[in-house]
């Protein structure tokens, strides 16, 4: 099965959302699936389980800081997108796989964990908490609670998926202080913070393509 990769670069959230919705319609009509990479200008997206208490500032204060707010039709609470975070949207017809959201989400998490391992980052999924986490280390020992490095939230129409993941590659982490990410009392981290160096976005995309193709058993084409 063929999946086409598209790279939309830096794009505002609303434009990307409209394009993604058109992709969903196309895949529902029988076109092959899409793997979409992009980065967004600073925006907080409020999922279907959004709680006001997950915002730590008023909406006016957040907008004054140059961060947009958007209510979206994905699962989960609030999350932040900003430049330096690789957003991966997956528009995939699950009628051609297992019609099983649990397996789909687990496979996405597995791609994410394997991706981080390729960069030397040991990451885990945690039962009951969607997303991918890393342990804090001091002097070679894991200390304290985990930090979240990748967020996941999806939507499904006629068993075609949309939305996806936000991978904190070189993300400006202080912006996360505006929110309780995903409604959790959790610190966010990034690949750059863990590795103490900037990470090449193109390398992350390339490895994601390889791993996604392998785990979902699809041919990735550009």
């Amino acid at each position, binding site marked *: 099965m063929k999946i086409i990769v598209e790279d939309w670069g830096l794009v505002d959230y609303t434009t990307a959302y409209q394009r993604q919705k058109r992709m969903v319609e196309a895949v529902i009509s029988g076109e092959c699936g899409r793997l979409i990479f992009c980065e967004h200008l600073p925006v907080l997206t409020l*999922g*279907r389980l959004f709680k006001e208490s997950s915002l730590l500032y008023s909406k006016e204060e957040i907008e004054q800081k140059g961060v947009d707010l958007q209510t979206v039709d994905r699962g*989960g609470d609030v999350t932040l997108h900003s430049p330096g975070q690789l957003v991966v949207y997956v528009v995939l017809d699950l009628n051609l796989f297992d019609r099983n*959201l*649990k397996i*789909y989400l687990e496979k996405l998490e597995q791609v994410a964990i394997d991706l981080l391992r390729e960069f030397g980052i040991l990451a885990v999924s945690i039962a009951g908490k969607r997303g991918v986490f890393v342990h804090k280390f001091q002097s070679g020992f894991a200390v304290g609670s985990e930090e979240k490095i990748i967020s996941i*939230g999806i*939507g499904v129409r006629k068993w075609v998926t949309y939305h996806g993941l936000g991978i904190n590659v070189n993300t400006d982490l202080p912006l996360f202080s505006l929110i309780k990410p995903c409604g959790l009392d959790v610190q966010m981290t990034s690949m750059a913070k863990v590795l103490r160096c900037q990470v090449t976005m193109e390398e992350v995309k390339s490895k994601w393509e390889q791993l996604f193709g392998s785990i979902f058993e699809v041919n990735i084409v550009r």
Partner: protein
Amino acid sequence: MIKIILPELGEGITKATVACWHFSEGDTIHTGDEVCEVTTDKATFNVEAPAAGRLRSIAVKQGQDGLVGDVLGIIE
């Protein structure tokens, strides 16, 4: 009368919350229309109408939880 059922979404997913209904009671709907959106912790899912007709009643309202297999609404 035809039941709109909360479908199997994957093993281990036993319940979902109705995020919104796209139709109101009394509305005419067609087979395959996405009648409501349900949400789990990380996924939203649009439930389709299994038959055409009139949405007679909504059993699980916006914000309420349903279990897999529960009747969300009735079409007549």
